[in-house]
């Protein structure tokens, strides 16, 4: 209809409460992420690894298949540990790829064309907007981490019936591991979510955000390794990959030292990563900074 064939009509309807209106933030953010099919493909790969490990569990619980694959020779504990180590390594790398793919789409596009100005002119708190973004990226990463862990343990619980011969020696350890691995998955998700959002908030260009995140993920590990090698000093590992590995190791072997460091250092470093990333997001989204022209 051409301009002015209709008169302006105001709107007087029921206004939704703030928590309800904030739900649209993760919804529209995820829509933007899944505009690219590769995100869906990556999510599919993440789900595939769960299916693969579940398949593996089916194999080890079926004596006929074990005989066929000569799995009886493998000690149960080794098999138990290996499955989780492979599982977590794969989880971390898929997660990392997902962060590189999805995180730049979170805040950068809204900074690029300054739509954040019209978003913040709405009656929503900044903290709510950030929470919406955390839910979007955190939810996506959760599907690849602790949700999968929970599902995996659920399948194990179903498959490892009390009658099964492995149950007695396998299940009690595994059940204890569940809480530890859940904690590791949640921690990894939180750290990667905040780091991803910080990378996205720091630049208006999504491609620059990818490069920046790569540097953040790989740089500290590379730097500490080089410093350790060149100066022959023991630098605590600060890269996210090392920390995730170490945290996983600590979860399996509580009380032991990792690379001459202990659980305090690993926890401190993880909290530091979260705090720095959260600080960057808050700083970048200060309204008068966003509005500066």
């Amino acid at each position, binding site marked *: *209809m*051409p*301009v*002015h064939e*209709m*008169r*302006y*009509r*105001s*709107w*007087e*309807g*029921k*206004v*939704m*409460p703030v928590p309800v*209106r*904030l739900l*649209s*933030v993760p919804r*529209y953010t995820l829509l*933007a992420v899944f*505009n690219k099919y590769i995100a869906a493909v990556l999510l599919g790969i993440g789900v595939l690894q769960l299916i693969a490990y579940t398949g593996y569990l089916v194999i080890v619980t079926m004596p006929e298949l074990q005989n066929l694959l000569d799995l009886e020779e493998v000690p149960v504990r080794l098999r138990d540990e290996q499955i989780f180590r492979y599982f977590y390594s794969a989880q971390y790398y898929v997660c990392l790829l997902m962060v590189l793919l999805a995180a730049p789409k979170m805040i950068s*596009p*809204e900074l*690029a*064309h*300054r*739509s954040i*100005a*019209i*978003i*913040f*002119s*709405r*009656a*929503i*708190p900044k903290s709510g907007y950030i929470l919406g973004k955390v839910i979007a990226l955190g939810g996506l990463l959760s599907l690849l981490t602790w949700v999968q862990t929970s599902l995996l343990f659920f399948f194990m619980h179903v498959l490892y019936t009390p009658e099964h011969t492995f149950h007695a020696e396998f299940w009690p350890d595994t059940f204890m591991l569940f809480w530890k691995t859940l904690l590791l998955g949640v921690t990894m998700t939180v750290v990667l979510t905040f780091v991803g959002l910080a990378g996205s908030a720091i630049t208006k260009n999504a491609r620059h955000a990818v490069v920046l995140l790569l540097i953040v993920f790989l740089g500290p590990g590379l730097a500490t390794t080089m410093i350790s090698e060149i100066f022959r000093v023991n630098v605590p590992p600060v890269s996210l990959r090392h920390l995730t590995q170490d945290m996983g190791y600590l979860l399996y072997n509580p009380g032991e030292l990792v690379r001459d460091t202990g659980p305090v250092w690993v926890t401190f470093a993880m909290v530091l990563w979260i705090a720095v990333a959260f600080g960057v997001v808050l700083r970048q989204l200060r*309204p*008068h900074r*966003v*509005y500066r*022209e």
Partner: protein
Amino acid sequence: MFLEAENVTVTFGRRRVLDDLSMRLQGRSTGLLGPNGAGKSTFIKALLGFVPLRRGTIRVLGHDVRRQAMHIRSLVGYMPEHESYIEGLSAVRLLRYLGELSGLSPRDAMERAHESLHYVGLGELRYRPVETYSLGNQQRVKLAQAIVHGPKILILDEPTNALDPEGRNEMLRLVRDIGEYSGSHVIMCSHILRDVEYCCESVTVLNRGRAILSGVIEELKKEDIRTYEVRVEGNRDGFERELVRHGCLTSQNTQGHLRVQLPEGYGTRYLFEIAQKAGVQLRHFHFKKDSLEDIFVSALQESERGHGYARP
């Protein structure tokens, strides 16, 4: 009165962008005028609660911006000066998103998104990504997003930027229509005086972070019996010096005529006396009815001279 600012000071670093600004806005539509850097955009950001006030208060429809910024934002629709869209989102989806953020249910938001886009004349293009629009149509999308939730106050920052003459006329008609028929108050920031004159009932002029003039446009434009346009034969510079010596304010209009404002309580006889003293003949002489441009220029000049007056 829907907006009241009292002694508002905003600083960026050491620079005072708003300097003890006080003003009251009333009526359906108000134009905020001022040269670049006058503080128009900063004032808008301050009333939306984005820029902290160093001193003073702003009350919007009775709500204090320091304590109720969120509530104020729910009453306001803001059309920024710069581009504002999310790449990849169509106009209808963008408006729906912003409508939902404003508190509309998804169904209402969708309905209002379509309605607003039809209203601004983008009905046919509403499913296209906004980045593919011309600059003029992007301006319309910005207007549509500002009205999608039916705000009580609509703030438009340079709404005719980047528009061709036809698009500009349509935008101005829309703004005027909203001001006249919606029951909303419109605040229009612009440096294009004709746009403000067409759309607004009243005007407030800002300069160097202060309100230097405020009033209803028609009243401001009324004949000012103290102001004359004159053309002289003889030593014009000498005449001008003589005028200033006698307490008159002088300037030059666009045709090159001398514009003279006599001091309070003096009439035309005084002007003739000064001309006689300066030894010039008055060849052209008439009362001056100000245009908005004259009012604006005069207010700025007086402000720069340090008079710092503010008409109520």
